[in-house]
């Protein structure tokens, strides 16, 4: 039940107490208040504002940025269907429409009785077990018509989420191929003990020797990053783990955190030793809310085992602890400077760079931001040595890469390979047939056609953050690109003009093509937008927003040509569609309610 005024006050006070009234934790407080109250009411903001002595504009500005925070009532049950292309291929939109009909609610709106709202959200990282959805931010996988029927019944009967069948919320790891990282069976503390024996300086040297590069996509040398942070002047240093795994089609960090959380936290602790940090933060994407209790329990166990806290493993002065921060639905927070802004309780807008986080990161202090997989790999280096690690993979790409495989294949899930594996090998392993294309590294990555399947996953050929989405010959690659373009438009932070407006213009152009109004003119427009997005945008989101379109135009042109029905420019505006709202209002769909070319005035 949504609480009354007293309940709201209690929820606000509890959130304030949990974070000791520190305004940097405003995003966490807002999230917790919503969990307790179903939304963030003006009264909740009143109380928060008085306690924190913040201007109301600041709190509303933050709350308004994150897709999962609601400053208007959104119902007791807030359903968000994951809308990645892989969910689409599994029929998510049909299920969404079906659910809307069953519950008598319009998509995107809150039901009249304030009970439920149903909408879509960006990829929730369950691509190997979709279609997926979130209910009040908790993930439900393998949604079927039957499951929707059951959920509708639970919602109508107002059954509390805690009493819903547990199997709805079961998330499988589906590890299909293990290599040195996923197959590692060392005990918690082993890597730390080895690192302490080497000393902080020796550890950094090992990491440098290993040639380990960041697994989040950019591929910066981890050892150099740690060394730069260590040498940067500052009053305090911070370790940040980027677990805001938002790139559609990527879900490896989800499994690492579910099954190998110790390795991730131990990697962060290694980094703390190397750079002299006292505090670490793991930024967990809001879609992985269900992992929070598990991660907190692992942290608690590590504290008891002297692997966290004061004097780690008995080493005087080695004091370090980790806190989990939860995101709230913002892909752009995967960009490291936006992530730091979000950690500081602000809107997730990427910063002007330089300065980079290694010199001025969290609270303006030197900060290392690394990906979940990078930290886990550091444990291997610490324990088995940099030279050994450098020997795995290819010359320019040391180690292994975990791929999140989804789409048209028999065995979706995680595949860990040494760098240098070909796309074809992965396709064979996952049981993909009649493959038309593979989207590597998500919408911001690259789309490969069959002729390129001999290429290798490696920094020197196809670098990737991990997504590997397979499309067979039955798929329409235009629809794939259109889905990705909608994703970028939804996730643009809105800070800079080219990305804020450009991604929406691009979405409109793709919709125009889809609606049968495309001409060569629109092709030229797409190219022009691409140039502006690449050269003028503030961050990587804008730089890469055109990639899916350009790739698919270059490699799957027939999918576009089918849609270019006109030689000459056609406007996107259509007289018959303009009548659609009137048809909806009057409930008519007869010939008289349509405008057909030639039946009335000139078109």
């Amino acid at each position, binding site marked *: 039940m949504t609480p009354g005024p007293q309940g709201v006050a209690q929820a606000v006070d509890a959130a304030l107490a949990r974070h000791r009234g520190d305004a940097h934790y405003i995003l966490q407080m807002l999230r917790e208040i919503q969990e307790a109250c179903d939304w963030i009411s*003006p009264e909740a*903001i*009143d109380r928060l504002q008085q306690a924190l002595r913040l*201007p*109301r*504009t*600041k709190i*509303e*500005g933050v709350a*308004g*940025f*994150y*897709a999962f925070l609601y400053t208007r009532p959104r119902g007791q049950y807030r359903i968000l269907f994951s809308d990645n292309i892989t969910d689409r291929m599994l029929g998510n939109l049909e299920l969404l429409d079906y659910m809307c009909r069953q519950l008598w609610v319009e998509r995107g709106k809150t039901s009249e009785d304030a009970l439920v709202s149903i909408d879509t959200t960006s990829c929730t990282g369950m691509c190997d077990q979709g279609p997926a959805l979130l209910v009040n931010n908790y993930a439900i996988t393998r949604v079927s018509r039957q499951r929707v029927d059951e959920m509708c019944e639970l919602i109508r009967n107002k059954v509390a989420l805690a009493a819903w069948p547990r199997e709805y919320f079961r998330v499988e790891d589906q590890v299909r191929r293990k290599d040195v990282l996923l197959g590692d069976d060392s005990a918690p503390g082993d890597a730390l003990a080895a690192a302490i024996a080497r000393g902080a300086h020796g550890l950094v040297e090992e990491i440098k020797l290993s040639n380990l590069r960041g697994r989040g996509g950019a591929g910066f040398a981890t050892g150099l990053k740690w060394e730069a942070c260590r040498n940067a002047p500052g009053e305090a240093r911070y370790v940040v783990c980027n677990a805001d795994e938002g790139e559609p089609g990527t879900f490896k960090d989800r499994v690492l955190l579910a099954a190998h959380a110790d390795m991730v936290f131990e990697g962060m602790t290694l980094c703390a030793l190397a750079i002299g940090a006292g505090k670490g933060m793991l930024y967990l994407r809001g879609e992985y809310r269900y992992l929070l209790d598990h991660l907190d329990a692992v942290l608690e166990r590590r504290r008891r085992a002297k692997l966290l806290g004061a004097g780690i493993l008995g080493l005087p002065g080695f004091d370090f602890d980790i806190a989990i921060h939860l995101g709230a639905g*913002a892909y752009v927070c995967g960009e490291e400077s936006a992530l730091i802004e979000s950690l500081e309780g602000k*809107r997730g807008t990427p910063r*002007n760079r330089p300065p980079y986080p290694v010199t001025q990161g969290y609270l303006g202090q030197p900060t290392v931001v690394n990906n979940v997989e990078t930290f886990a790999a550091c444990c291997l280096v610490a324990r088995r040595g940099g030279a050994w690690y450098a020997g795995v993979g290819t010359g320019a790409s040391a180690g292994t890469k975990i791929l999140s495989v989804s789409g048209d294949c028999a065995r979706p899930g995680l595949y860990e390979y040494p760098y240098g594996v070909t796309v074809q090998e992965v396709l064979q392993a996952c049981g993909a047939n009649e493959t038309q294309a593979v989207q590597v590294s998500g919408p911001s990555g690259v789309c490969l056609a069959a002729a390129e399947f001999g290429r290798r996953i490696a920094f020197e050929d196809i670098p990737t953050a991990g997504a590997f989405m397979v499309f067979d010959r039955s798929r329409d690659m235009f629809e794939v690109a259109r889905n990705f373009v909608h994703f970028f*438009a*939804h*996730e*643009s*932070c*809105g*800070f*800079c*003009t*080219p990305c*804020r*407006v*450009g*991604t*929406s*213009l691009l979405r*409109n152009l793709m919709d125009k093509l889809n609606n049968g109004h495309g001409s060569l003119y629109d092709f030229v427009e797409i190219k*022009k937008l691409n*140039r*502006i997005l690449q*050269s*003028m*945008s*503030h961050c990587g989101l804008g730089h890469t927003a055109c990639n899916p379109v350009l790739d698919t135009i270059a490699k799957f042109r027939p999918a576009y040509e089918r849609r270019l029905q006109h030689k000459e420019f056609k*406007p*996107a*505006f259509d007289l018959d569609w303009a009548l659609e709202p009137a048809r909806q209002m009057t409930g008519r769909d007869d010939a008289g309610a349509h405008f057909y070319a030639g039946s009335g005035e000139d078109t």
Partner: protein
Amino acid sequence: MSASFSIDGKSVAFAEGQTIIQAALAGGVYVPHLCYHPEFKPHGSCKLCTVMVDGRQIASCTTLAREGMVVESDTAALNDERRTLIEMLFVEGNHFCPSCEKSGDCKLQATAYELGMMSAHFDHFFPRRPVDASHPDVLLDFNRCILCSLCVRASRDFDGKNAFALCGRGIHTHLIVNAKSGRLADTDVTLQDKAVQVCPVGVMLRKDKGFAVPIGKRVYDLKPVSAYAEAAAAPQKE
């Protein structure tokens, strides 16, 4: 001997810590801009001031000048892209220059003229942005907002009020005011606030005094925006 760099072939002196745009404007070289203002911390969001340095495009308001750097700004390629940015701003909001009180004093309009924009080019978004006429002295017309955040910065850093903020995300980003009701009348904003005066477009208008200067005799009617480079480099006397 002061340090200098070259912009479009002209040598410009700069002091340590100055950005490219600061030094350029002070040296009489106009670089198109909307969200930059000499009195406030640079934001780097409108991207109009993007220039080319070493083959890379960077925002000149957030990049420090360096000795000997070679900057290109007034090139056909850059001006083409800047014009497209202006077109984007025109279709994103609802800008009806002929009926706008700010016409002739508006930096968006003046920059569009400067860059030779002939039409908005793209399809208009026609967003729904209700006007806030609640305040006795100030009219807020969000239709013209370009999200430059100058009012946000001025209110926070100069007026000490935090009366404005950006809310929402992406294309739904919008300006909000510091009141539970969401109405300007319920804030402590006054006509004298720097935040009200600094708006480069026609979002914030003084009530009861329309068209005091006739169309045709306004700031950018007299001279194009590029002729005000040095004025744009120094704090304005209101």
